[in-house]
């Protein structure tokens, strides 16, 4: 028992360790997940915010551009209707082109134009005409058209006159030596007479995207980058990054490290589908605040995780003890149960051994008893065969022989009983017709004069079949009929009725004669019970007991139905042969090892 007393303590220790480990694992996992999730959410959120800002920027830029374009469209429309422009272009008078257009285009260079009440930033840097072949028509000294930044003249050329307004960007060296972006619009001038394009008006505006909050913007085209707010070195690196990505064809966003702070680089295409080279607007935003927020949130989560873990660790002690109590109790209970089981097993074993011994004893005893009895009987019969025997000796001998017969029967019955008790009885169950069971018995009984003297009534339902062991069923029936005969009176009556009742077949045997007194009724099936009035009656009290045990082994029963006044009735029920299923022995009368063989079905 010591080992079991120790176990609960060890169990608690192990249990506590497990709880602690579990808490650590859970808290660790939760913290890691939380940190990961928060990290990602922040990044996503920041990314989305940034994109929203960028979209806003783009929208603003698009509005400005749309305005410029509409102003330009108006100008081009008016120009198209100017005969002087036509004359200059058609009549070999290009030198007069710019002077002729000066009036219309003067305001572009000079200053702002109000449109719808608001000042519109459409002050142009220059304007030029392209001929029908797309080449720039030189101004020939006309200053009013603005100065063309160096290097642009060739770039402005187009394959011809475009069908719609086209949009392009160019990076030119600025005043301070850094790069500036110029936004160029090319609009066709279409003759309203012939509906043919006669020339293209190209206007250059300064492209200065307004920086947003925390956002530096620039234009990137033709491998050059124009961006305010960043130094030349950063511009160069950014340009290189954009060039590399353009070659690879990858899409934003990308990151650039500027003095240790990560920056996010986004680009948007500005002029898709334009005959001019593609240009992108570049957005540079610092991720410092995002990084800081992420670090902060990570720290918060880790702190929370640590707190959770400490709490968990502290709580785990009382928790473990509390949880261990039922474990404790369970351990004790199982130990007790274990002991009980061992005891029960031991008892069962001893009981079985005793039963075996008893069975063997009764079997041995019965066999031991039968032998001398048969010897006695043989000897007596031999004596009876002597013709010299006197009459009174003869009747004496006959009486003795009858006693040996009786003794033999008792021994047989005892043997049967002992085998039933030991569970060594094998029943071979087969379907038998009830009538087939009864008839031979009735025949046997009919030689008895007492039987013949009774008025007999046999009423069997047709086709009754029972599932039974032929031999033992006959023993049951014999016992019942014997009783009905023995306990009858002169001039009495026997009534045998057989009928189906559910899954069973019932045989009701009734007889006239003294009824069994009430107090004795519960005991009639006891072994060796003899009725108070039965002293004169042959028998020794085993018949009913055996019959009932055998009936129960079949899965049926034998019961006293009624015994009152002059009528006693017993009910024997046996399983009907038609019924499906097994009929385990009701009220098990035998110990372990009862065998019911059912013609092959067990």
């Amino acid at each position, binding site marked *: 028992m010591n080992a079991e007393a120790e176990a609960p303590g060890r169990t608690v220790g192990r249990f506590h360790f497990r709880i602690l480990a579990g808490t650590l694992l859970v808290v660790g996992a939760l913290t890691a997940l939380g940190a990961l999730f928060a990290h990602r959410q922040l990044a996503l959120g920041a990314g989305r915010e940034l994109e929203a800002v960028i979209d806003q920027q783009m929208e603003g830029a698009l509005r400005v551009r749309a305005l410029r374009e509409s102003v330009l469209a108006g100008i081009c429309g008016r120009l198209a209707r100017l005969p*002087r422009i036509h*004359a200059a272009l058609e009549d*070999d008078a290009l030198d007069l082109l710019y002077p002729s257009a000066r009036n219309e285009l003067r305001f572009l260079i000079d200053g702002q134009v109000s449109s719808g009440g608001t000042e519109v930033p459409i002050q142009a840097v220059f304007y030029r005409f392209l001929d029908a072949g797309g080449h720039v028509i030189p101004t020939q000294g006309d200053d009013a058209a603005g100065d063309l930044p160096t290097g642009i003249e060739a770039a402005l050329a187009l394959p011809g006159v475009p069908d719609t307004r086209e949009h392009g960007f160019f990076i030119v060296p600025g005043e301070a030596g850094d790069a500036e972006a110029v936004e160029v619009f090319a609009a066709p001038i279409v003759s309203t*007479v012939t509906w043919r394009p006669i020339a293209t008006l190209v206007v250059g505006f300064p492209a200065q995207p307004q920086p947003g909050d925390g956002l530096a913007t620039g234009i990137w085209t033709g491998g050059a980058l124009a961006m305010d707010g960043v130094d030349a070195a950063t511009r160069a690196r950014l340009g290189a990054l954009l060039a590399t990505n353009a070659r690879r064809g990858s899409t934003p966003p990308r990151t650039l490290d500027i003095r240790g702070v990560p920056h996010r680089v986004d680009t948007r295409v500005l002029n898709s589908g334009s005959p001019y080279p593609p240009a992108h607007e570049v957005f540079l935003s610092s991720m410092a605040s995002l990084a800081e927020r992420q670090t902060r949130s990570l720290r918060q989560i880790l702190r929370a995780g640590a707190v959770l873990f400490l709490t968990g660790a502290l709580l785990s002690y009382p928790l473990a003890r509390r949880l261990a109590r039922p474990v404790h109790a369970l351990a004790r209970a199982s130990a007790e149960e274990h002991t009980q089981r061992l005891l029960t097993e031991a008892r069962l074993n001893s009981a079985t051994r005793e039963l075996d011994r008893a069975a063997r004893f009764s079997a041995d005893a019965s066999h031991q008893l039968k032998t001398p009895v048969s010897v006695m009987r043989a000897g007596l019969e031999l004596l009876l065969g002597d013709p010299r025997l006197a009459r009174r000796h003869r009747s004496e001998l006959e009486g003795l022989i009858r006693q040996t017969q009786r003794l033999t029967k008792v021994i047989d019955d005892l043997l049967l009983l002992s085998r039933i008790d030991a569970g060594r009885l094998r029943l071979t169950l087969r379907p038998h017709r009830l009538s087939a069971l009864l008839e031979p018995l009735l025949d046997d009984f009919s030689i008895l004069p007492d039987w013949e003297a009774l008025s007999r009534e046999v009423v069997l339902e047709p086709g009754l079949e029972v599932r039974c062991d032929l031999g033992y069923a006959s023993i049951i029936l014999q016992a019942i009929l014997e009783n009905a005969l023995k306990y009858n009176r002169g001039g009495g009556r026997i009534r045998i009725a057989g009928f189906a009742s559910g899954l069973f077949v019932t045989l009701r045997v009734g007889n006239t004669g003294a009824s069994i007194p009430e107090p004795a009724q519960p005991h009639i099936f006891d072994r060796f019970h003899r009725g108070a009035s039965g002293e004169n009656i042959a028998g020794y009290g085993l018949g009913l007991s055996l019959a009932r045990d055998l009936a129960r082994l079949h899965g049926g029963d034998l019961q006293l139905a009624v015994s009152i006044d002059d009528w006693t009735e017993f009910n024997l029920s046996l399983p009907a042969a038609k019924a499906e299923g097994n009929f385990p022995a009701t009220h098990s009368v035998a110990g372990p090892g009862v065998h019911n063989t059912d013609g092959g079905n067990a």
Partner: protein
Amino acid sequence: MVWIPYGVLSGTALPLLFATLPLSAASIVGTVPLPEAPPATVMAKRYEIVSRGGVLSTIPPVGVVWLEGALDPEAEKPALEMVQKDFLFSPSLIVIPTGGSVSFPNLDDEYHNVFSYSPPKRFDLGRYMPGEEPVPSQVFDQPGLVTVRCEIHEHMRAIILVVDSSHYTTTGTDGSFRLDGLPAGTYTLKAWVNSELTLEKQVTLEAAQTIELSFGEE
């Protein structure tokens, strides 16, 4: 003096030169290959000078033939008239020798403006209403094609072909022409088809000779 009969495209043209036919004058008859009359567009019905891809020509196409270099310096310089009527220049084709002049009276109820950017003569007579006195006019002292336009009305266009010759004529719509009273000598005969195409042929004229040639050959 040579009397040269010649036909003009439309409107009234005042023969400015009457001369008697000298017995020794030469003549040239021939044809100028003219492009097929293009299918007239709705616009073209209103206008008679048409510009296609920047090339000016007449509708229906006619040519102008002149003997280059045979300019009589003593001859009186003709003064022709090109009116603005119904928002059209009329006539829309005028041929004058170098030194001739054209006046542009406004016969509409609207302002009109007469100008040209053409290299032979760039001029701008300003805007004026009908009844402007004196009638604005312009002397053309350089040979070449002068496109006359109205600053206000884009569709108004006319051609003044200033030729370095006293002997000129416009062809029929079939391209046929006849030049009479030509002086003997070696000259270049030119044929204007449209603002881009001017055919030429060398001719040697002898007195009282009639040459028949066609610009379409060779």
